[in-house]
C-alpha cells in the first residue's frame, strides 16, 4: 500500500458526508438576520475626556470654536451644511409657486411664535451658532460662529443667551472641557422647549424625557436609557431625521424609522401584522402624548396685549395671548406618506374665514405609501393682512417689538422690510392648523393600543373622515 491515506478514510469521509449533509440541510435553524433590535444600535466611540486637552483662555464663543477646529478642522464646515446651521430646507418645487422655495425657521412661519426674522436676539438662543447681532449674512459666513458647545458641552455648565451667543456668566473653559457626544440634555435644550417652553411645541418631546421612566418612553426610559443619537444616527454632523413641518417632501432615507432597529421582527399576532400596511408603528405604540408635561394645543394671538388679565403660563400671557394646554391625550390621526401635501410659504394667500394649514400631511386612503399616523394638531389664531390676505409675521422681541409695546401695527410695519411682506395697515386673526407627527413617548407592546381602541363602538378613529365607509372590521380594509 502506498503511504498516502489508507483507503478506509475515503469511506469514512463518505459516511460523514452522507450523514452530515442531510442533517445540516434539514436541521431547523434560526434566521440569519438578527431580530434583536439591540444589535442595530450604533456603536459609540469611547469618550475622550477633554479636561486636560482643552486650554483657555476663552473670551467668546468663537474663541472656543477656534480651539475645537484646531483638532477637528472639518467640524465647522460639516455643521454648516446641516439644517441645524442653515435653518432652511433644500429648495422644493411646489405646485402653488413658480419658483422653488425653501422652508425653515430662517424664512418661514409657524403657528407658535410665528417667525424668527427680525427676532434673532431671542430666537437664536436655539441656533447652533453665535454672532447673530451682525446679521444673517455675516453670521452664516463665518465658520467660527459654529457653536460646538450647544450640542457637546454639559448643559449644566453651558447655556445660550441673546443673538445665539453664550449666556452671560458662562465659564467657557469649563464648558469646553466638558464636551462629549451629545446627550438627551443637549438635544432637549432646544427640542424639548421648542415654542417657548417645556413641551409647548411637540407633545411627544418635553423635559420629562431628561429622566424618563420606561412608562414615559420605552427606548429612552428604564434600562434602555437610549440617547437621541441612537436613532438619530449621525455622520459628519449630519443627523438622521427631518422635521416634517419644515419640509415639503422628505426622502425616506433621510428619515428615522422604527425599522432601523426593528428588523425582521414581526408581531407574534398575525392579526396585528395584517395592519402593518395601513397603520404606522407609532399609531399603536404612541397611544397618547404629553404623558407627564402638558403641551399647547391652542394659541389665540388675538387676545394678546389685553390689560388687566392675570398672567398664567398655561392659560394666558399678555405677550402671547390665550392658550389651551393638554396632557396625556389622544393624538389626531391622518393618512400620512411622510411628506406634506401643503406647507404655507410666506405670502401665500389665505381664506381668513376658513382654516389655513401651516402644513398639511400628505396621504389618503388611496395612497399605497400612506399609513394612518398620529399627529399633534396645534390650532392657532394668528395675525394676517386683511387687505393682502396673507399671514403676517410680527416683530415681537426687542425694544420696538410687540412684546415691549403691545402695538400690532408697529410690529407688522417694522417687520415688512425684513420679511419683504407689504403690510396694508389692517390686520386680523385667522385660524391656522399645524400638524406635528407624534413619534416619541413610545410604549411597549403591553401598553400599546388594543383592537377596541380604534374598532368598535367607542373607537378613537373617525373612519369616515379617513375615507372608509365604516369600521373596517365590518366594512373591510382598503385592500378589501
Amino acid at each position, binding site marked *: 500500500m502506498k503511504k498516502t491515506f*489508507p*483507503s*478506509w478514510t475515503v469511506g469514512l469521509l463518505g459516511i460523514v458526508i452522507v450523514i452530515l449533509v442531510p442533517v445540516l440541510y434539514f436541521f*431547523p435553524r434560526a434566521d440569519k438576520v438578527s431580530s434583536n433590535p439591540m444589535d442595530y444600535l450604533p456603536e459609540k466611540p469611547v469618550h475622550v475626556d477633554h479636561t486636560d486637552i482643552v486650554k483657555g483662555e476663552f473670551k467668546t464663543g468663537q474663541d472656543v470654536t477656534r480651539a475645537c477646529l484646531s483638532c477637528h478642522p472639518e467640524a465647522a464646515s460639516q455643521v454648516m451644511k446641516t439644517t441645524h446651521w442653515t435653518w432652511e430646507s433644500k429648495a422644493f418645487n411646489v405646485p402653488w409657486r413658480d419658483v422653488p422655495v425653501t422652508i425653515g425657521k430662517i424664512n418661514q412661519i409657524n403657528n407658535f411664535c410665528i417667525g424668527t426674522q427680525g427676532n434673532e436676539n431671542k430666537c437664536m438662543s436655539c441656533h447652533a451658532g453665535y454672532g447673530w447681532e451682525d446679521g444673517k449674512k455675516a453670521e452664516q459666513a463665518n465658520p467660527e460662529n459654529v457653536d460646538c458647545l450647544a450640542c457637546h458641552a454639559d448643559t449644566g455648565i453651558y447655556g445660550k443667551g441673546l443673538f445665539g451667543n453664550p449666556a452671560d456668566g458662562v465659564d467657557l473653559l469649563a464648558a469646553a472641557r466638558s464636551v462629549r457626544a451629545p446627550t438627551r440634555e443637549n438635544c432637549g435644550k432646544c427640542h424639548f422647549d421648542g415654542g417657548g417652553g417645556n413641551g409647548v411645541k411637540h407633545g411627544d418631546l418635553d423635559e420629562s424625557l431628561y429622566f424618563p421612566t420606561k412608562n414615559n418612553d420605552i427606548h429612552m426610559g428604564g434600562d434602555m436609557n437610549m440617547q437621541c443619537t441612537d436613532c438619530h444616527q449621525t455622520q459628519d454632523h449630519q443627523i438622521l431625521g427631518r422635521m416634517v413641518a419644515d419640509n415639503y417632501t422628505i426622502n425616506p432615507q433621510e428619515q428615522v424609522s422604527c425599522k432601523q432597529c426593528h428588523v425582521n421582527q414581526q408581531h407574534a399576532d398575525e392579526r396585528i401584522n395584517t395592519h402593518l400596511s395601513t397603520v404606522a408603528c407609532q399609531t399603536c405604540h404612541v397611544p397618547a402624548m404629553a404623558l407627564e408635561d402638558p403641551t399647547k394645543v*391652542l394659541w389665540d394671538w388675538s387676545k394678546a396685549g389685553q390689560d388687566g388679565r392675570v398672567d398664567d403660563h398655561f392659560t394666558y400671557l399678555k405677550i402671547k395671548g390665550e392658550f389651551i394646554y393638554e396632557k396625556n391625550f389622544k393624538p389626531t390621526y391622518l393618512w400620512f406618506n411622510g411628506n406634506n401635501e401643503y406647507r404655507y410659504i410666506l405670502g401665500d394667500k389665505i381664506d381668513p374665514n376658513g382654516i389655513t394649514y401651516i402644513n398639511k400631511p400628505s396621504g389618503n386612503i388611496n395612497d399605497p405609501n400612506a399609513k394612518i399616523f398620529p399627529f399633534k394638531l396645534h390650532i392657532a389664531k394668528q395675525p394676517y393682512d386683511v387687505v393682502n390676505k396673507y399671514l403676517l409675521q410680527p416683530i415681537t422681541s426687542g425694544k420696538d417689538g410687540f412684546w415691549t409695546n403691545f402695538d400690532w401695527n408697529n410690529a407688522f410695519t417694522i417687520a415688512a422690510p425684513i420679511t419683504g411682506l407689504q403690510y396694508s395697515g389692517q390686520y386680523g386673526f385667522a385660524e391656522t392648523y399645524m400638524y406635528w407627527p407624534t413619534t416619541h413617548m413610545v410604549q411597549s407592546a403591553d401598553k400599546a393600543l388594543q*383592537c377596541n381602541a380604534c374598532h368598535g363602538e367607542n373607537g378613537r378613529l373617525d373612519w369616515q373622515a379617513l375615507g372608509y365607509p365604516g369600521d373596517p372590521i365590518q366594512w373591510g380594509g382598503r385592500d378589501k
Partner: protein
Amino acid sequence: MKNRNILVALGLILAITAFFGIRSALAKPEAVPVKQVAPIHPTFALLDAAGKNVLESGAAISTMNSCGQCHDTDFIQKHAFHSDLGLSAYRRSSPVDTPDGEFNASNGMFGEWDPLTYRFLSQQGDERLDLSTAEWLELNGARAVGGGPATISREGKLLTSLNANTKDPETSLLGRTGKVEAWDWNVSGIMEMNCFLCHTKSPNDQARVADIKSGNFGDANTATLIGTGIVVNKVSDGWTYNKDAFDENGKLKSDFVKIQDPTNANCAACHGEVHTNIEVPLTISAYDLTNPQTATTGQVISAQRISDSGLNIHGKDALTRSWDIHAERQLKCTDCHYALNNPSHTDEARKSEPDHILYDPRGLDIGEYLKMPDHNLARGQSAQFNVAPEYKGTMRRCENCHDAAKGHADWLPYIQTHMTAVACETCHIPQIYAPAIQSYDWTVLTLDGQPVKAYRGVEGDPKAVTSLLTGYEPVLLNRTNIDGQKLLAPYNLITTYYWVYDDANGNKRPVRLFDLKTAYIENGVYSANILSAFDADDNGLLSKDELVIDTSAKEEAVKSKLESLGLKNPRIEGLTQPYSINHNVARGENAVNDCKTCHDDTSRVSQSIKLANYSPNGVIPIFDMANNVNATGEIVKGEDGAVYYNPVPANDEMYVFGSSRVNWIDWLGSLLFVGSLLGVVGHGTLRLITSRKQPKGHVRTERIYMYESYRRFWHWLQTVAIVILLLTGLIIHRPDTFGALSFRGVVTIHNVIAVILVVNALLSVFYHIATERIQEYIPRPYGFFDDAIVQAKYYISGIFKGEGHPFEKTPTSRMNPIQKATYFGILMVLLPLQILTGTLMWGVQQFPAVANWFGGLPFLAPFHSLVAWTFATFIIVHVYMTTTGATPLEAMRAMVTGYEEVETHELAEQGETK
C-alpha cells in the same frame, strides 16, 4: 321636567362655549358623530294587555301586544329557551316518574334542582311547600326574561286562570312564619317575555328587579323603561307615560325608539361579568349567583388586558394578555350565540343537503326573519345548562371559524391526533384568573342563612380588595359532544353538601331552607342544642372552624333537630358538578404551547383538583352524571382531609405520551440491555483469564480479503445511523431527562438519519441480491440446529480452552450458524419492523388512518421503543462477538481495511469436530 333639564344643559353648553371661546368654535376633527342606534326600527305604539294604547289606558305595557304588532311574538316566545327555562320539559320527579329518586323535574332553571341556589321547586303533592312558582319567580326573576313559567302553568294554562289555593305549589307561597299562603296571580300579574331587557341599550334592571322581588310581576316589564323618557312612574292605578315621547298618533317618536340587537351588556345582566370599557379598570361586581358564569367558573368577558384590570391578581404585571381574545377582537356574544334562523348566519350548507351542495342560497328573507326570529340561540356544549338540549352544539364552534391544521402547522406535531382528542379550550384556556366557587356547604348555616362557601383561586374572601387572586387551572374532563365526539375540555368542579330527607310520599327531597333555619337558628342566634354540639371554645359564637360537621356528635345534633321537625331519615349528601369553561380564550402565544405541559410525568391531563376542604363527617360527594361530562376519574379524600378529584386518562382510553408510560417496555428493554452487557463482560473476563493459561499462537491464521469496500462502507454507514438513531430516540423517548436539548432538532435528526438508514438498507439489499450474497444471510435449514449447537458449545466452552472456531470464516461464507440466525432476525424481522413502526409513527400526521389500523400511536410508540432496546442489545453483543476473531481486534480491523487474519483449519480437523 325634561324641558328644564334641556334648558339647563343648553345653558351649561353656552357657558362653556363662552368660557373657552374659540375652543368650542374650532371643533376638533376627531369628534366622532354619535351613531344612532338601529335607526331603521320604525316607530310603534305601546299597547297594554288588552291591546289598548297605554297612553289611553294608563295600564302596564304588554310586550307581547306591543311588539306583536309587527313581530310574531307568540312564535318568538315558543322558540326561546331563555323564556321557557325548562317549563315545557317539566314533569314531576317522584318515585313513580323517576325511579332513582332524582330531584330534577325538568332540564332548566324551572324544575332543575340547583344545590347552589338550594331552594327546591315544590311539586304537586309534596309533603312540604318549599319554593312555589310565585316565590321561584321572586327569587329567580332577576335572571328570567319572562314568559314561560312566568306566564304559563305547568299544565299549560295561563297562570291568571288558576284559582288561589294553598295546596297547590303554583298558587301559594311559603310565608316567613312557615305558614303557606295563597297566591293570586290576578293581583300580582304575570311577567310576559320582556323584549326591552335584551333589545334596549340601558334597560332599568333595578326597577324591574324591585317589582319582581316584591311580587308585582305584571309591572316588571313596564318598569324596565323607567328612565328612558317613555315611562314616568308607577301610580296607584297603573302607570303614567311621558306624552312628549309619543306623536299625535300615539306612536313613540323615533327619538325614543331605541331598539337594538342585544349587546354584550344585555347578556351580561344575567350571565356574568362582561366589561366593555377598556379605559376603566375592570372590577368584578359579585362572586355570587347574581353573576353566575363568573361565580361558577371565574370567566370574565373583556377585551381589557388582565394587567390593566383593577383586580389584585398575582403576577398581574406580566399578564398582558386580554381576558378574552374574542372580546379583544370585537366579537359580540351574539356573533356566536345568534338566532338560529338569522339569514346572516346561514351555514355553509344544512346537514340535510345532498353532499355536493356546498352552499344553499335559499334562506329566509330578512323580512320573514324579522317577523319570526327564532329566539332559540345557537349554543355550545355546556355542562350545566341543559334546557332545550336539542340546541346543544348548534353554535359555530372554534373549528368553524379557525383552521386548526393551518393555525398550528408551524409547530404542533400530530395536529389531527390532538384535535380529535383535545378540545381547543383545553390549551387555549390554560388558566382562569378570577376566583370561582369551589364548594357550598349547606349542611350548616351561617346566621344570615347562608351556606359555608369556599372559593378557589383566591386567598381569602374574593370580594375583599386585599385578597390575592391567584386564579386556578381548570380540571380537564372528557366531554361527549352532541355528535358523540369525545374531547378533553376544561371545567370547574363545584361541590355541594346538603341534607336530604324522605317525604311522606317516599320522595327524596332536600331539607327546606326554612327547616334548616329552624333547626339551626332561634331568634337570630344559634339554638342551644346546636351551640352545645358545635361551640368547642364555649364562647357562644360559632367560628368558621367550628361551623363544620366534622364529628358524629355534630351530625347527630343537627339530625335530631331535623327529625324533631318531622323530617324522616335526614342524611347528608354531597354532589360534585362540572361547570364548563369556554370563554376567556387566549391566543396561541398565551395558550398551552409547551409539549411538556401534558407530555410529562406531571401532566396537565391527569392534574387533580381540590373539590372541598373537608367532607362533612366523611361524606364523599358523588359526581353529577346528568350532563355531558364523563367523570371517569376518582373522588378521593386526601391526607389533609380535603376531597380531590383525580382524573384517570386511561379510563377514557387516552394515551398521553410522556405521561402515560408503558413502563414494562423500558424495564424489559433495559433488563435485556444490561443483562447482555453483564453477559459479555463476564464472558470476556473469563476469556481473558483462560487465555493467559493457554499457549499462544498455536492457531494457524491466514490473511484474507474478507470485505470488499462497498460492504465496509455499507456496514459503517449503518453503524453510525443506528447509533445516532438509538441516542436521539432515547432523547425523544425521555425528553424530561434531556431537557437541555432542542426536542424539535433531535426529532429532525432522528427522521433524517432514519431515511438514510432505510436508503442504505435498500441499496445493500439490492447489492446482496444482485451479487447473490444474500445467501450468506439465509440459514441453511439442513443441519442448522446441529451446527448452531456446535457453535454455541464453542462459545460456552471451546473458546475458553483455546480451541479453534468450529466454522471457518471465508469471504463467501463469513458467518457461523448463530450469526446467520441472528442477522436473519435483525435484518429480516427487527429492522423492517422498526422501519415500519417508525414510518407509521411519523405517518400518523400524514395518513392517520393507516397508522390507526395498526393500533395507532399507543401501540406503535411503545413497540418502536421495545425494538430499539433489542437493537441496543444487539450492538453490545455484536461488538463483543467481533472480538472473538483471531485476535480481539482482528475482525474490527477487517471491517476497516477489508483484510482479516482468519483461522485456517485442516479439513480433517473440521470433519472431526463435526
